[in-house]
């Protein structure tokens, strides 16, 4: 299709001026805790005070992050440590030895981050501090452990980026103040504001925590362990992939045999009358069924997103699962109760186990009848035999399998009431939906 022509005839909206700034402001604002109306806040404060006394974050501590970690620093600061970062804190004073840490500090007095390179003082803001050794100084540090503290201070460099509020960098009496959106550095060379270009260059010139420091040895061991585990996982994945390929090959081969090689283009358990005609010859029963959940199955928000559904769609899906359970259990429960001699036991077993119990029990008593029932189910589904009249008593194996092989269709029809037929079909066979699959091998063709 001619894109230019289409675009000229179907123009789109352009972003209005200042859109990016508005979005960024919203994003940053949404990260801040909301201010409650005063009355509610007063009531909540009384309750919160009691909780705070019991649950307040420790006023001192230290942490060495092996992965991104969020920590509460006292009552009014949160720090997000990147892997390799190390901090210790007491009250409103933090010592950041190395690594990269993002801080959010609520207003309420001085808050100081001390680094080997210099101090960062704040009054309610959010900012990021990255501490590292300037490249080229690492060897000196390792050789001269006796003066480690002094050399660390000389070699270390901290790069600070401010997102909100103001921050003051200080080193040896020299001070520089950074506002929102500004970056600066502090180290042996003093304190300095940095332009956007200089920030990238300066950060690139820092040794990462992984490259040196006390953390390196511990991290190396951990990395080796993870690397070994990853290798084993990769080998297992490879094996799994190989098995899946073999399985897929076998399924394709089976498909060729059963439908003359035509590509299915649909779910393996989405059977048409031709499929059923083939299965009926052997009396094989195959079906997909919605998960058996008495109260319905509720997809998680992540699953809803994967399924491409809106949050409002959870309720009809959950209800459809509940109705599916009720429909099946209405048929299976009396059959199961008869097979085990007790309805309470049937309730304990549930639909899945009950299906096997019914089939096994009947097969033991009436093998020929059960086999014939299985063939008949296939034939009805293939359209080779009329469906039984509602309410007319059938062989128990027929009743069980007829209900089970028809349930996904009933579930799909139920979903179609809300989602329409095309979407219902997609959902009924979607990977993200909770479903089970069963295949009962057939007894073979009828004896002539």
């Amino acid at each position, binding site marked *: 299709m001619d*894109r230019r022509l289409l675009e*000229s*005839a179907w*123009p789109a*909206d352009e972003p209005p001026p200042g*859109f990016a700034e508005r*979005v960024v402001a*919203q994003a940053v604002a949404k990260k801040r805790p909301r201010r409650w109306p005063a009355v509610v806040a007063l009531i909540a404060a009384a309750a919160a005070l009691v909780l705070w006394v019991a649950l307040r974050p420790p006023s001192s501590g230290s942490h060495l992050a092996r992965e991104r970690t969020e920590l509460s620093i006292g009552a009014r600061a949160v720090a997000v440590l990147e892997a390799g970062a190390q901090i210790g804190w007491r009250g409103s004073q933090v010592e950041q030895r190395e690594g990269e840490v993002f801080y959010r500090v609520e207003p309420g007095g001085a808050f100081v981050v001390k680094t080997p390179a210099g101090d960062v003082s704040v009054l309610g803001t959010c900012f990021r501090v990255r501490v590292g050794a300037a490249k080229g100084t690492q060897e000196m540090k390792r050789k001269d452990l006796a003066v480690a503290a002094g050399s660390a201070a000389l070699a270390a460099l901290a790069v600070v980026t401010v997102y909100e509020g103001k921050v003051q960098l200080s080193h040896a009496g020299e001070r520089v103040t950074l506002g929102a959106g500004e970056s600066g550095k502090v180290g042996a060379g003093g304190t300095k504001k940095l332009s956007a270009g200089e920030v990238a260059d300066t950060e*690139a010139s820092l040794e990462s925590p992984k490259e040196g420091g006390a953390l390196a040895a511990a991290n190396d061991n951990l990395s080796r362990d993870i690397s070994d585990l990853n290798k084993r996982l990769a080998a297992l994945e490879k094996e799994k992939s190989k098995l899946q390929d073999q399985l897929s090959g076998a399924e394709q081969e089976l498909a060729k045999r059963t439908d003359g090689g035509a590509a299915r283009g649909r779910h393996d358990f989405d059977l048409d009358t031709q499929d059923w005609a083939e299965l009926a010859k052997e009396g094989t029963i195959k079906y997909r069924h919605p998960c058996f959940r008495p109260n319905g199955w509720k997809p998680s928000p992540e699953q809803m997103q994967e399924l491409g559904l809106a949050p409002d769609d959870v309720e009809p899906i959950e209800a459809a699962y509940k109705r599916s359970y009720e429909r099946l259990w209405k048929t299976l429960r009396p059959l199961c109760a008869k097979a085990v001699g007790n309805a309470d036991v049937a309730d304990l077993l549930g639909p899945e186990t009950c299906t096997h119990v019914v089939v096994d029990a009947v097969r033991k008593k009436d093998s020929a009848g059960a086999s014939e029932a299985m063939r008949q189910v296939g034939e009805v589904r293939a359209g080779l035999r009329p469906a039984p009249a509602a309410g007319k008593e059938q062989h128990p194996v027929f009743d069980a399998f007829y209900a089970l092989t028809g349930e996904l269709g009933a579930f799909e029809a139920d979903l179609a009431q809300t989602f329409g037929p095309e979407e219902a079909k997609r959902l009924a066979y979607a990977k993200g939906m909770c479903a089970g699959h069963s295949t009962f091998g057939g007894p073979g063709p009828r004896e002539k």
Partner: protein
Amino acid sequence: MDLPAAAPPPTRAGELDRETLLRAGRGDPLAFRAFVVRYERPVFALLSRMLGRGHRVEDLAQETFLRAFRALPGFDPDGPARVSTWLLTIATRLALDEKKRQRRPEPVVLDAPAPATPERVARQHELRAALAQAIESLPDDQRAAFVLGEFHDFSLQEIAEALGAPVGTIKTRLFRARDKLARALDEFKEER
């Protein structure tokens, strides 16, 4: 200046560079602004073609970026998905949710720049009318597949993932949408 020890993977054509993306994921407002500036036009284009121009487009564009901001820390810039595909998938789903909420579909407003001659005015008017009719008649799922494929260069697989439907279904939706719109455009071409 010292160079980093290992060169980062190259930036994908047309996409925001990896470093800025990572910084945006860490909550850096300046990097996030660069992210918004880079992708705001395709997001507005997609939403306005899905929902009709002016109708809630800015609100939903804003919501798209805010969701992306929350989800960016989990996005792997070295993974198989392009960031534009990922972002436009968020926008598509929001647009489809919005359409579901609407009781009546909003009419598509097509207002191409005014042509120079009276003859062209008449032809453009006819084209817009024909296209508007064809677009209005597209079901939401066909329109989404068409907009993603034709305007945003999504592959069949990417459209399938964005809309949560099998590739076969997408092929059908695209075929039907193209068929309807191509017929409207053909009439226009014949007249030119």
